[in-house]
């Protein structure tokens, strides 16, 4: 039977089924989302957008299709979420404009509506990126228009639109390199295809399953995308709720005792209760299922009611995930040339790590690591050669001893302060030998003046400086030079002494016993007098020293 026109009831069906289809597949669309921002919400956004449109349609009692397309477009506009949501709202705005005042739609009018949708959608973009939802919409509308020239059957036109969208979606990775890189199709385009498929399903009603079948290849692509998603989200192993990735094929033609009639919808609904990441497709002969569940046995038992089980596959995703995590840990450890630094304080550690230090040994003024600690760190690095930055005068000896007994070549850069260590790291080059690195890294130490601010614990006189207990001391390259009861003043005075005409950059790390506000005060004080200096403030989190300062 040829369907000549879409009336308001048919259109309501189309919108309802499309919304349902989009909703059911929202998670899958999310998993494809890498462009323009890989935030994994395209499916959610498109779903909310079309739901808002569907709600407006449901609330409109009109029996005219033109009125309903208007409600759909307005509802989608109001509920538009995300880029893909805004684009689809505009697409349907164009469809509404083309169908204004029409009570029903014939094949030609349907095709025109989609074409006008695409024309409108393309207007609101400065530089259309091909390989996105816009491309999919455009090719789909084209195919629809071609088909409308041949037939007046709206079913065939809608089918052509769906096929066009599907064909175009497959080409998106070739048009958009970022998709190819990740190995997925465009998420927005996929979302639109689900909506269009829903329209077709709405038109065909119960005949949909006979006329329209997803193919095996699509299923495999979807499974890949699902797993791509699992790797992408860096969850910890304990967070995996459903631990077994289970895949079965059910041969629906096989004769088995007490065979139940197969209904894909029911089948999906049941499985979605015992697992997630569900994908299920079927034709008359075979159903194929992919699901993540805690109970793979239940999936088999359920599937086997409808026919014989063909291919069966279970992967324990927790073990897989642990392996991935462990592998990456090991990769991190097996560097060829390791740099090991002694440091304390989270911020300081992070600074060292950001400069390429592979291992940090906890330590500093009050807790010096032993020779053994340093040897252990060298061993654990698994490297063929290593550089150690003691970052404290008291640790240099221990480090040198460790280097002597180590089985691999180890060079010591005699850094006496954290600042020196950070500066030395700037010259590290893993392609050079240990000796060359020690030379170039040590050379730079002269360019940096290190200052440390800490609190005095007793009265004394050193280097002609009178030190009072609880005053703040400014220590420049290991010598106490400043004493002042106020932290900020002591620090500013110390930095003043560190400056010469070549000074350019001042790095200030505030420690556990000081804060950013105090650091900013120091900067403000110094900036007032020296407008040619640049300041950098970091949260070092180090104990003992209120401020670690380097002047370069």
């Amino acid at each position, binding site marked *: 039977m040829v369907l000549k026109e879409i009336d308001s009831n048919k259109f309501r069906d189309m919108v309802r089924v499309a919304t349902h289809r989009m909703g059911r597949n929202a998670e899958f669309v999310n998993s494809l989302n890498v462009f*323009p*921002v*890989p*935030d994994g919400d395209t499916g959610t956004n498109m779903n909310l957008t079309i739901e808002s449109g569907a709600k407006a349609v449901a609330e409109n009692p009109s029996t005219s299709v033109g009125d309903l397309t208007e409600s759909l477009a307005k509802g989608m*506009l*109001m509920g*538009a*979420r*995300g*880029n893909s*949501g*805004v*684009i689809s*709202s*505009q697409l349907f*705005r164009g469809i509404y*404009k083309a169908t204004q005042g029409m009570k029903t739609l014939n094949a030609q009018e349907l095709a025109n509506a989609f074409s006008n949708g695409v024309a*409108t959608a393309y*207007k*609101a*973009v*400065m*530089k259309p*990126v091909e390989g996105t939802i816009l491309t999919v919409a455009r090719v789909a509308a084209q195919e629809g228009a071609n088909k409308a020239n041949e037939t007046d059957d709206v079913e065939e036109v809608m089918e052509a639109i769906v096929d066009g969208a599907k064909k175009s979606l497959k080409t998106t990775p070739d048009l958009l390199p970022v998709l190819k890189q990740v190995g997925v199709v465009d998420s927005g385009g996929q979302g639109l295809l689900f909506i269009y498929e829903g329209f077709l399903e709405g038109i065909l009603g119960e005949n949909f399953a006979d006329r329209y079948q997803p193919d095996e290849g699509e299923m495999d692509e979807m499974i890949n995308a699902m797993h791509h998603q699992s790797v992408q989200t860096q969850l910890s192993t304990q967070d995996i709720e459903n631990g077994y990735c289970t895949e079965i094929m059910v041969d629906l033609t096989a004769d088995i005792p007490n065979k139940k009639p197969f209904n894909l919808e029911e089948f999906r609904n049941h499985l979605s209760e015992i697992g997630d990441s569900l994908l299920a497709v079927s034709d008359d002969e075979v159903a194929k299922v992919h699901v993540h569940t805690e109970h793979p046995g239940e999936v088999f038992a359920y599937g086997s009611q409808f026919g014989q089980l063909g291919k069966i596959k279970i992967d324990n995703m927790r073990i897989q995930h642990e392996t991935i995590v462990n592998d990456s840990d090991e990769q991190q450890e097996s560097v060829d040339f390791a740099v090991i630094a002694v440091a304390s304080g989270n911020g300081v550690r992070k600074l060292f790590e*950001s*400069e*390429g230090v592979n291992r940090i040994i906890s330590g500093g003024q009050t807790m010096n690591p032993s020779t053994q600690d340093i040897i252990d760190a060298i061993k654990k690095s698994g490297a063929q050669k290593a550089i150690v930055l003691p970052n404290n005068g008291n640790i240099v000896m221990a480090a040198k001893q460790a280097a002597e007994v180590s089985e691999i070549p180890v060079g010591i850069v005699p850094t006496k302060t954290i600042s020196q260590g950070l500066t030395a*790291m*700037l010259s*590290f080059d893993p392609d050079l030998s240990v000796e060359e690195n020690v030379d170039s890294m040590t050379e730079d130490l002269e360019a940096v003046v290190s200052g440390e601010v800490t609190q005095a614990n007793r009265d004394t006189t050193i280097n002609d400086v009178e030190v009072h207990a609880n005053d703040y001391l400014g220590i420049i390259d290991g010598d106490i030079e400043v004493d002042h009861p106020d932290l900020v003043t002591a620090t500013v005075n110390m930095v003043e002494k560190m400056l010469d005409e070549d000074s350019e*950059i001042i790095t200030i790390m505030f420690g556990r016993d000081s804060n950013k506000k105090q650091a900013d005060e120091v900067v403000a004080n110094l900036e007032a007098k020296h407008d040619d200096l*640049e300041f*950098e*403030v970091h949260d070092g989190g180090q104990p003992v020293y209120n401020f670690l300062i380097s002047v370069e």
Partner: protein
Amino acid sequence: MAVKIKTKNGLIDISNGVIATVVGSAATSNYGVVGMASKNAIRDGVDVILNRANYKRGVVVKSEDNEITVDVYIIVGYGLKISEVSRNVQDSVKFSLKNQLGIDTRAVNVIVQSVKVLDE
């Protein structure tokens, strides 16, 4: 003012012009944004659409530590959900700055200077 990033091989200094180009390109790649507008609406006109070379007139960058705040002045197509288009601009600007320049953005403020009616 510019953004400075310290690496193991030295200092990277990214000028505001570079940031403005990245921000402008990210903003205009969003669906519904029909152009960048000038921050000086009175001097340059409210709905003058800037070309790529002039993006910096529609972008204000303020930097602090390794984080920046940007103001983006845009023109949006009529008939679109302006709040949503603007939110998409925020997302993509933030993403592009992190992705292309490695800069964290504290805030992306979108100022819709004008709405352009696209012929139906």
